[in-house]
């Protein structure tokens, strides 16, 4: 048999999806800006927040600042990867013809999407590990009253939050050009970080607390704080995240262009 004698065939789907997930996770972690967004900024926010809260005597309903801020920063990390990083990466994949190229490979579209989700979760887990360690070093003591409720609620919040933000990110990347996606994804991230109730509890925003609590950022932050500060499942917050997830998935499905 000569070198190029045809022997076509698709690899098993599991192998294809695994290859795609590995590739995307590797590229995300290799990219300097994405790493900044994923790890460096959340760590700075955590350390800076704890120092500032101590100095300003920020009132967090009697809780130690690090105990309130750490769950918020975990939520911020999920948002940065699921929304901003995913939107930017997908925007440039469209621009560079990567999605088109993969479109003529054996990898089906649902395989591509599954690969993206696995890559995303892979990076999120890595972020959470780093940030949990950073929080513990700063003196974070998560509520240990009922670890099963806490861990279960965190997993539910991370899953629904990742879904809602990833769908929003894909929506932005699917309708805008790559540069516009870059700008919008970063801007929205900064705005939500500053005023979206993600790092600080919505109660800290005074009269604006009502509307802010409907944002996906606040819902994710509230759900994480409820799980790790008060040991409870915040059903309202999870419902809000599910609502955003449904809405954004619908919009993305209607508008996303692969090329």
């Amino acid at each position, binding site marked *: 048999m000569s070198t190029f004698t045809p022997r076509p065939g698709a690899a098993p789907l599991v192998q294809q999806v695994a290859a795609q997930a590995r590739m995307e996770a590797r590229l995300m972690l290799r990219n300097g800006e994405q790493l900044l967004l994923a790890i460096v900024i959340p760590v700075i926010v955590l350390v800076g927040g704890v120092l500032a809260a101590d100095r300003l005597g920020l009132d967090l309903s009697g809780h130690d600042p690090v105990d309130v801020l750490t769950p918020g920063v975990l939520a911020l990390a999920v948002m940065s990867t699921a929304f901003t990083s995913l939107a930017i990466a997908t925007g440039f994949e469209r621009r560079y013809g990567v999605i088109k190229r993969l479109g*003529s490979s054996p990898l089906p579209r649902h395989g591509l999407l599954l690969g993206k989700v696995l890559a995303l979760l892979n990076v999120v887990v890595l972020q959470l590990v780093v940030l949990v360690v950073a929080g513990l070093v700063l003196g974070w003591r998560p509520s240990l009253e009922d670890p099963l409720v806490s861990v279960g609620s965190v997993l539910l919040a991370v899953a629904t939050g990742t879904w809602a933000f990833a769908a929003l990110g894909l929506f932005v990347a699917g309708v805008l050009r790559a540069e516009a996606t870059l700008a919008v994804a970063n801007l929205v991230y900064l705005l939500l970080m500053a005023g979206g109730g993600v790092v600080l509890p919505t109660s800290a925003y005074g009269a604006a607390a009502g509307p802010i609590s409907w944002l996906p950022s606040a819902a994710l932050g509230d759900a994480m704080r409820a799980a790790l500060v008060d040991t409870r499942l915040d059903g309202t917050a999870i419902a809000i995240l599910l609502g955003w997830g449904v809405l954004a998935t619908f919009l993305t499905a209607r508008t996303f262009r692969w090329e």
Partner: protein
Amino acid sequence: MPEPAVLISGLEMQYGAKRAVDGLSMQVDRGSITAVLGPNGAGKTTTLETCEGYRRPQAGTVRVLGLDPHRQRSALLPRIGVMLQAGGAWSGVRAMEMLDHIAALHAHPLDTAMLNDRLGLADCGRTPYRRLSGGQQQRLGLAMALVGRPELVFVDEPTAGMDPQARRTTWELLEEIRADGVTVVLTTHHMDEAERLADQIHIIDRGRLIASGSPTDLTSGGRSATIRLVVTRPFPDGAPESLRSELGHEAEVTQLDDRSMLITGPADGGTLGTVSRWCEMHDVLPESLTLGRATLEDVFLSLTGRELAG
């Protein structure tokens, strides 16, 4: 007789007011290299992308390896290889990593190190895609099309941006994969590429097939000659008709603009003599009168009255 690798009949594709493909029909035989030749904007890429399942035919039918590329896409894709005209890789991905990734999507891929080596990419395996030269990106694109051991590859302008040596390497590789039984469909607007490689050439202009045949058929086996006549003052009215009647039915006369004509006729001294006598008789002063063996460029010119390249 096995079914053809590609069978297109009556394909029509329109974008807004622009008719990109206008009732195109053509066939690609298995095991051949077939060139789709035409100027930029002739509809070559649209036609290829319809075969690759990216676009749904608006009218007409397309069958690739006997399958409908749109409705039976998942069955077709593992069997074909596609080289896009540009791009197709993450900007930060390393060349070798990208090729390994595409290989991992296939069941029996080629050895990627061997393939990189064959395409002269061994030295830049760790180079990020964005730092590769245009020619290197093209070669990586070709490697990605071949790595899954397809039966049929579509290559869109495979040697655009390559230096002469890389072009030759690429041509040799395409000839080798044909020898191993792979069908190749390539688009090009380079005559030399089509003439050197193709068993069969389909010339497309404005979305229509205007000529098909082997390079030898199309150029009449080099037995015909072309004369390019450029004159100092515009031709008198009726010049092409008058020259045609002088030359007889074996010759073809195409007026290119008001000061140049292309004459295709038997490769003997008679044609040139007749043209030169005609100029004298009609008080036309030739600025240049060039004689050459008919090339594909001339074929295209005489069919459309326009230059192919550019």
